[in-house]
């Protein structure tokens, strides 16, 4: 925006006016939760009439995937125009007209790695909200060792025969299709025997099972594949070269996780502790908790400064790779610590976990769920391994 000296760029002006006129008021502001989004798909219903209106208007403009080529259902905007549209949507706090793993994750991968036929077919379906996608990467026996995946796709001449299972598939029970990594070669380096495949979840032999977490219900499912026949044209990219696509996609996944995470209301630790414990002469009543809280708040402030510094280093053209390697580790450790402090301060109030409307009931769930933060998206241990090997150059035994 800073470069548009002397009045607004015409595209910005036009876009701003259009958005102001066309984005329903309820489609502006904070997203309440996952049910406040339109996810598309075969069974996908609009959460409200306004969601429908908003989707249809944006769809008509080609602004579901504004920067994709028009032949794929996109808006064909230039990078510059796309950036302006995003800024203007942010300015009005417009909600996304369609929220979809197809749009955010599969799409970019297809654009980069798929055949022209695949692109035209699948990308249009995504933009038209016909197909809701889910992602199948993790497996029960792989864990931190993602490349150790075992779900097998055997070449049966005219099709692949797929057997195995995936875990931690978000909304696997609501999705129409799944994009996943399968093992197509079990010899040699494990990364070299992985392929990227698209599977219709209505195929015979597929099943899903919701995963209940220690904190209660979750969007995750396990998905099972028992002698599932997958047409050969559903392979994306080269055979056994799926790991390249996976790595490309993981970057997008991290951004995505960040996005969804933020739909949960951030808790104000200091306020919650203060309310629960009380203070005398401006000092928290519990000296031990006060010390722990001070330590936490200091580290949180310094962590925020470190994010600022990373941004500034990047702006200054310095390599900030070493810096960003600590974000996942430290950010989640801080989050876990915050929930511990809240639990400690809230005492028995935070231990209640029935389905009643008690105002504290959600704390126990948030606390229990937080234990997963240092596991999902690469465990803390994996992060420390990465730092010690890649950044510090410590030797592997």
């Amino acid at each position, binding site marked *: 925006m800073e470069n548009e000296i002397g009045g607004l760029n015409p595209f910005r002006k036009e876009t701003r006016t259009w958005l102001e006129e066309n984005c329903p008021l309820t489609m502006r502001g904070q997203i309440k939760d996952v049910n406040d989004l339109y996810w598309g798909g075969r069974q996908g219903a609009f959460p409200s009439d306004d969601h429908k209106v908003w989707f249809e208007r944006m769809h008509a403009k080609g602004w579901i995937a504004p920067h994709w080529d028009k032949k794929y259902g996109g808006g064909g905007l230039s990078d510059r125009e796309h950036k302006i549209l995003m800024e203007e949507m942010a300015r009005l706090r417009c909600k996304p007209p369609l929220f979809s793993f197809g749009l955010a994750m599969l799409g970019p991968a297809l654009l980069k790695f798929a055949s022209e036929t695949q692109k035209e077919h699948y990308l249009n379906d995504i933009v038209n909200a016909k197909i809701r996608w889910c992602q199948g990467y993790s497996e029960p026996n792989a*864990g931190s060792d993602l490349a150790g995946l075992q779900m097998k796709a055997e070449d049966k001449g005219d099709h692949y025969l797929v057997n195995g299972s995936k875990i931690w598939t978000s909304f696997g029970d609501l999705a129409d299709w799944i994009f996943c990594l399968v093992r197509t070669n079990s010899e040699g380096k494990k990364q070299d025997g992985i392929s990227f495949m698209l599977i219709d979840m209505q195929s015979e032999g597929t099943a899903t099972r919701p995963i209940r977490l*220690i904190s209660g219900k979750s969007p995750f499912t396990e998905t099972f594949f028992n002698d599932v026949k997958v047409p050969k044209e559903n392979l994306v990219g080269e055979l056994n070269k799926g790991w390249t696509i996976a790595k490309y996609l993981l970057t997008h996944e991290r951004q995505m996780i960040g996005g969804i995470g933020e739909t949960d209301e951030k808790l104000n630790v200091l306020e919650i502790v203060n309310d*629960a414990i009380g203070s005398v002469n401006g000092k928290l009543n519990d000296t031990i908790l006060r010390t722990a809280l001070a330590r936490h708040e200091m580290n949180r402030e310094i962590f925020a400064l470190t994010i600022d510094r990373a941004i500034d280093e990047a702006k200054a053209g310095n390599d900030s790779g070493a810096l960003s390697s600590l974000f996942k580790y430290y950010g989640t450790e801080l989050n876990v610590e915050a929930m511990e402090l809240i*639990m400690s301060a809230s005492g028995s109030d935070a231990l209640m976990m029935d389905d009643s409307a008690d105002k504290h009931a959600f704390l*126990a769930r948030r606390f229990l769920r937080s234990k997963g933060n240092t596991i999902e998206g690469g*465990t803390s241990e994996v992060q*420390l391994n990465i730092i010690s090997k890649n950044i510090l150059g410590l030797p592997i035994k």
Partner: protein
Amino acid sequence: MLVINEEQKMLKASVRDFLAIQSPLAALRKLRDEKNSDGIDRQLWGGMCEMGLTGLTISEAFGGLDFGYLGLGLVLEETGRTLTASPLISTVLLSTTAINLAGSAAQKKALLPELARGQLIMALAHEEKAHHDPGHVATKAELRRDGYVLNGHKTFVLDGHIADKFIVVARTAGKVDDAKGIALFLVDATAKGLKVERTQMMDSRNAAKISFENVLVPKDQLMEAGDYDTLVKIFDIGCIGLAAEMLGSAQECFERTLAYLKERRQFGVPIGSFQALQHRAAKMFIDIELCKSVVIKALKAIDDGTPDLSRMASLAKAKLGETIKLVSNEAIQMHGGIGMTDDAEIGFFLKRGRVAQQTLGDYPYHLDRFARLRGF
């Protein structure tokens, strides 16, 4: 001697065998999932009563076994391993202790035999805030001609939803945080004006919120020695019993994690071969060994009637609270994604551990109290 004798070993082993069959961890999940209205398995409880567990701390004169608190501690250690939900803590550890310590001769004669036979579930109603505070009692007991009239409310009353009778801490005089003026009353669950609201806890056990609206309690239901010092002693014993339970949970949780470290493979090797995890496991082992020492010492201190019971209680409760927190957090982290699922049982130790360490005072509470008792 900080070791257990043959008789005690036998008790421990027989309870262990009993629970392995009658109440493995799956039993707790079942109670939770079927939304059992009692929150406990009455048949299991019947079995425990038959074994005499309810009479461990009741003298033979009243039909008990007079086995002592070390015995009860060993039983609690075993129920900590299986996370068995039963009225053992509410009824045996807390209420029976209260009657032993504070009851009049008549009250003992009336209640102890029933308790020994397991015919009575009782709950101690004390807490009024989210944090344990022995001296904090706002509930009032006013003396009228026909008895005491109780008004107030209680929270975190363990097994309050199934109690036949409550021991209620109320105030006959003094201001809300005074040590003086505190008294204990026996109140029937059916008393008029008494309201009980079940609260399900994180550990799938149950507590209740209770309110008293002009509840009339006959004069002979005032407990004879129910003053502040007695109350503190009941809590000290309660803390040590809870520490014994947490010791069982910590051991079981650690052993399961250790087994997982040996069995789970990543990057072609068992994850237990990673030195960073090995050192963390070794530190947990050390903490648990330290815990064993403080728990047995504290249990013996009850039976021996040593004068430093409060310090021992805080020492045990604090150390066990910290250790179960460490061990259950590490257990989830070392189990990875699997540990986050409800299917895996390991999360139940995290949940019970948090409730147990909060019950009767958490780590900061007992750390502070220990320092006070040590004079700094």
